[in-house]
Structure formats: structure tokens, C-alpha cells
């Protein structure tokens, strides 16, 4: 038994070490037993207000408002992968758009008809509900041989405008459809866009500033010159094609377009058939109902750049240009940035040098085929998709990576590329972002299933963890608003299980511990000193 003085009462206190450890204090001539004040916790720790529920031993982040939360995250990958409705057919050249009134992903494609041994033109609508994807019936819109196809949703007219190359002579042709549920009704029969001339690389895009669509193509009958026309759709779905503008007086193919909502123009990127297929751009806007070339046939870079696509980030007013870089012989996937500069012009970050702008993995070197891009307005990140091949572990699945751009330096920060599909052997991948369900839809040809059309919902893994917000481990369980004690660097958390002594652990995207870094944020948790204890890094 030892003796001390209670500072508060100035009474003598006796500690009985053989009993319950309570204090015996003298009070009014009698001994009274009372629990000692809690011992101050040992090691580094902070007390912060919990935001949400935190369990004992949880990994914890510091939020921007000064509260703390358990780390949360979700796995990425493929969800609800289905065979598209015309499932007996070979599918090629899929394109798509989102119908924001019916909340459907609309897909057009070239579809092999086994009865007629012909490639029909087909349109169909997909519904996304949560993580579930379903298709309505396929509507055959062209029973002639159908080559390239594209579709745009004319928001102002609430109709879909489909462009396609009709017959083996590739006559450029448009039609319009209304959509109710998943049922299409043709409101405009076939209109030839350019008399009896042939077209290649037909594309169509909505112009939100002029309430029309604009079609783009190479005119095969006129040296493949790049041409564009405004197409106005009435509320009843009748189309009027307006006068042509020539945006490139050289051969064009592999046309890709975006609409720049800040500069109010259409950016067209294409390969120049008369200059070694090097990438060029042009700019068209619509004045009244007249498509007007504002910038014609400008070189982007004089090097091999294939399998390309572009996407526009309206939040930063920049364009990302993805491609398979043949210029260095690697055929790996890279990004070039196109930055608006002056009136109707763009500068660019040039042919890749080094590996800073590479989105594919190496080693082993991964090639990127059929790169396709979207900008995700919800995460404010560019998404690039491709089918990759490194001849060992990656054999043509759908791959994807997210990235952001620091516009002060044009530096690109890529998240780790991941394999999204369970199928290895895809082609003609085409993403569409559903802004209603906030899901990324990708249709593709499944070469492991007779080249049928397949589609799924694809997610990147997500997490609240960043490289800078990890705080430590919760030393108890807390509910929202309670003051939580968080053990920090140098402290030992003893609420773990199954750890391997002397192993360094990393914080995972869902807050768990793992022996390799999360693909989203490389954060070291600490070193295991017992199966239940980790020395916090």
C-alpha cells in the first residue's frame, strides 16, 4: 500500500494494490473507495470530432473541415455484363449517345444478318438501373449493306439523328428517330447528305448553342476532303440538311469530334491521308443554320499516332487526345493535350517524349488499341479506355485509366490502369456515360463469343483516401459527432488481426490494410509488430 495526497481535497489517499486499484481517501474521518482518474494515453494521438461512425482500429482520414472519418471506398470492375439484344449477330463499329429524356443509352452498330448475309444498320436502347443493365429490342434501320454509323441526340428536338454509309458505295445518309421507352419510331426516312457521292468516317454531333446537329465526313468522291453540314431537326423529327463547308482540303479519315461549350465550336481531329496519316484538326461552328469552317486543316503533330480519340473537359476547357503512339515504335497508349489558344485555334503538348503522358503499363510493355475517351462530369476526371496487350498477363481485355490535368503546367496525373472486363478478346469498344445513373456503359464486340455484341457497366475503384489525408487509427469506437481518439505516427494500434510481424502494410482503397499500395493512393500504414499490433508510420 502506498500513500499520496488528493490535491483537490488536500486529503490523504491510500492506494490498495492488492484489491481493485481504487483509491481509499479520507473523508470526514472515514475511508472512501473511489476510482482513480483515467491514466493519460500513451504515445502520439489526437482527439478530433468524428464524422460518421468509426470502429475501433479503423484507418482514419482527416477531412477538410477538421473532422475525421473512417476510410471508405468501392471496388471497380465490370457489372451486369450482357449480350446485346441482337445476340446472334456479329457486331462492329458501335457508337452511342445518351438520351437524357428517356434516360437510355442509345447504341448504333453494324450488325451481321445471318439470314441475308448482309451487314444491317441497327439501333437499340439500354436501360441502366443501379448496377443492372438491360436492352430493349433491336431496331433495324437499314437492310442495305451498312458501313460506318454514328448517332447524336438532338436535345432541342428530342429526336435521335443517325448517320450511316449506305451500300458498298458508302452513300452518306441520315435518318431521325423518336424514342419512347426502348421503342424507336422512324420520323425521317433516308436522306442522302451529298447527292450520289460517297462518304467515309461519317460522324454526327449535337450543337447545343444552335439547336441542331452537325455531320462530318470525308467525301470519297471529292478526294476525301473533310466536309460538314448542319442538320436541323424539327420537333416532329423531320430533318433539313444545310449547305456544306469544307474543313479540310486534303484527304480525311478516322474523324473524331467534340463540341467545345466554352469556345462554342466543333473541334474535328482526323488523319490526313495526304500527309502520312499525321493527325490534324479543324474547327467548324454554325452560324444561323450554316456550318462554317473557322480553322481548316491544321497539323497537330508529324508523327505516327493511331487508334485515337478525343474528349472535352468543360470544367477546365481542355481537350485530351488519346492514341496508340507509333512514332516511337512502342504502340503504347499516350495522351496529348489540346489547349484552346486564341479564337478558334488550339496549341498542343506535342508528340510524347519520355513516359510522363503514358497511360498503359510498362514493364512489360502494353500496347493500346482502339483508345476511346470520355469525360466524367461527376468525378471531373478524364476516362480513357482501350484494349491492351502485353503478351503475358494482359491479352485484349477492356482496360481503363482515369486522369486529371494541372492546367498551370499541363501535367497529367494518371491513376493506375486497371483491367475492367472479365473478357479478354474485345474489339470496337465504345463508352457512353449515363448522366442519370452516373454509370459508364461500354459496348464492344466479344471475340470470344462469336463476335457478338456485349455491353456492361464499368467502374473505376474509388476511395476517400488520398496521399495526404491519412491520419492514423481509431483507438475506440465512435458515433457521428463524438470526440474520437486517433493514434498517429509512432503510436501502436493494437486493434488489428492477422498481421504478419515485420511486414510493412499499406492503406487500401476501402480502408483495410494490405501488403502493397492501393492503386489510387500510395499510403504506408506502418509495420506489424504483432498479429494484432501495428507501429504506425
Amino acid at each position, binding site marked *: 500500500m502506498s500513500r499520496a495526497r488528493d490535491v483537490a481535497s488536500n486529503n490523504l489517499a491510500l492506494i490498495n494494490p492488492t484489491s481493485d486499484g481504487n483509491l481509499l481517501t479520507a473523508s470526514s474521518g472515514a475511508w472512501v473507495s473511489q476510482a482513480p482518474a483515467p491514466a493519460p494515453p500513451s504515445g502520439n494521438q489526437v482527439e478530433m470530432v468524428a464524422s460518421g461512425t468509426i470502429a475501433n482500429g479503423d484507418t482514419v482520414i482527416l477531412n477538410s473541415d477538421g473532422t475525421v472519418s473512417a476510410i471508405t471506398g468501392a471496388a471497380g470492375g465490370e457489372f451486369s455484363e450482357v449480350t446485346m439484344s441482337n445476340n446472334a449477330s456479329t457486331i462492329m463499329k458501335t457508337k452511342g449517345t445518351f438520351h437524357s429524356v428517356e434516360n437510355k443509352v442509345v447504341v448504333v452498330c453494324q450488325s451481321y444478318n445471318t439470314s441475308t448475309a448482309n451487314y444491317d444498320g441497327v439501333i437499340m436502347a439500354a436501360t441502366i438501373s443501379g448496377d443492372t443493365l438491360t436492352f430493349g429490342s433491336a431496331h433495324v434501320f437499314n*437492310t442495305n449493306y451498312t458501313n460506318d454509323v454514328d448517332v447524336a441526340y438532338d436535345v432541342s428536338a428530342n429526336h435521335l439523328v443517325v448517320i450511316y454509309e449506305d451500300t458498298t458505295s458508302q452513300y452518306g445518309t441520315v435518318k431521325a428517330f423518336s424514342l419512347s421507352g426502348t421503342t424507336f419510331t422512324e420520323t425521317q426516312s433516308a436522306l442522302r447528305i451529298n447527292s450520289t457521292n460517297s462518304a467515309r468516317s461519317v460522324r454526327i454531333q449535337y450543337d447545343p448553342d444552335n439547336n441542331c446537329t452537325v455531320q462530318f465526313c470525308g467525301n470519297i468522291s471529292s478526294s476525301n476532303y473533310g466536309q460538314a453540314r448542319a442538320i436541323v431537326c424539327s420537333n416532329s423529327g423531320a430533318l*433539313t440538311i444545310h449547305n456544306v463547308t469544307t474543313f479540310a482540303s486534303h484527304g480525311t479519315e478516322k474523324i473524331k469530334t467534340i463540341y467545345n461549350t466554352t469556345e462554342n465550336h466543333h473541334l474535328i481531329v482526323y488523319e490526313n491521308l495526304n500527309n502520312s496519316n499525321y493527325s490534324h484538326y479543324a474547327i467548324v461552328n454554325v452560324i444561323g443554320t450554316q456550318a462554317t469552317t473557322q480553322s481548316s486543316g491544321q497539323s497537330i503533330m508529324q508523327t505516327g499516332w493511331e487508334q485515337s480519340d478525343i474528349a472535352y473537359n468543360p470544367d477546365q476547357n481542355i481537350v485530351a487526345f488519346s492514341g496508340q503512339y507509333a512514332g516511337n515504335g512502342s504502340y503504347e497508349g499516350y495522351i496529348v493535350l489540346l489547349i484552346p489558344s486564341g479564337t478558334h485555334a488550339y496549341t498542343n503538348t506535342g508528340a510524347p517524349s519520355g513516359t510522363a503522358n503514358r497511360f498503359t503499363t510498362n514493364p512489360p510493355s502494353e500496347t493500346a488499341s482502339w483508345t476511346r475517351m470520355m469525360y466524367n462530369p461527376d468525378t471531373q476526371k478524364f476516362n480513357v479506355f482501350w484494349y491492351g496487350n502485353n503478351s503475358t498477363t494482359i491479352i485484349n481485355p477492356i482496360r481503363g485509366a482515369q486522369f486529371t490535368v494541372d492546367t498551370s503546367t499541363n501535367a497529367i496525373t494518371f491513376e493506375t490502369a486497371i483491367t475492367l472486363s472479365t473478357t479478354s478478346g474485345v474489339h470496337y469498344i465504345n463508352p457512353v456515360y449515363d448522366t442519370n445513373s452516373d454509370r459508364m456503359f461500354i459496348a464492344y464486340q466479344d471475340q470470344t463469343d462469336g463476335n457478338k455484341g456485349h455491353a456492361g457497366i464499368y467502374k473505376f475503384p474509388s476511395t476517400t483516401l488520398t496521399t495526404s489525408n491519412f491520419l492514423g487509427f481509431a483507438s475506440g469506437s465512435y458515433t457521428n459527432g463524438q470526440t474520437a481518439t486517433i493514434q498517429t505516427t509512432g503510436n501502436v494500434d493494437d486493434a488489428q488481426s492477422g498481421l504478419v510481424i515485420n511486414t510493412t502494410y499499406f492503406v487500401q482503397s476501402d480502408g483495410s490494410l494490405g501488403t502493397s499500395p492501393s492503386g489510387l493512393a500510395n499510403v504506408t500504414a506502418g509495420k506489424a509488430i504483432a498479429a494484432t499490433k501495428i507501429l504506425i508510420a
Partner: protein
Amino acid sequence: MKALVRRSDNTVGEFFPDSASIALEADKVVVTQGDATITFPDDNDSTMSVVEGLEQPEDFQPHKYEVVDGALSVVDGWVDLVFDVEE
């Protein structure tokens, strides 16, 4: 078959089956085949004519053949178009 012929150079732009109906109008050309209709808004009865009784050559390309005395012949100096082999 029926040939839609461009008057300016007398070349065949497109062939249609004999069952197709081709209407040359003042402001457009309209071709009807069963339930399907194809409209040529850039063309009219001044820019196009119809020639019947022709067979489509296997190597036909738009405006490769001209109609001479009711028969088809390849346009002088014609170089075959290269169609889509891309994506």
C-alpha cells in the same frame, strides 16, 4: 436496273432495282422501294435523269460509268475510289 444519272457529266450515281420508283421533282429526287424511301435533297429534275434497262457492273463505283448511247463505259482517266478500310 434503273440508273440515277447526273446530267452534268452523264455518269451513273446510283443503281436501283427495276421495282423501285424514282420521282424527279423540281426540288428533290425521291426513290421508293417497298416501304423504304430515299430522298436526295440536293438533286432535282434538272440535275438528274433516270435511265432504265442497264445492269450494274460488278466493279461499279459512283460516277465511274457514263451512259453513252444507252450503254455504260468507264469515264476516261477514271481512278478507282478507295473505300473504307478503316476502323
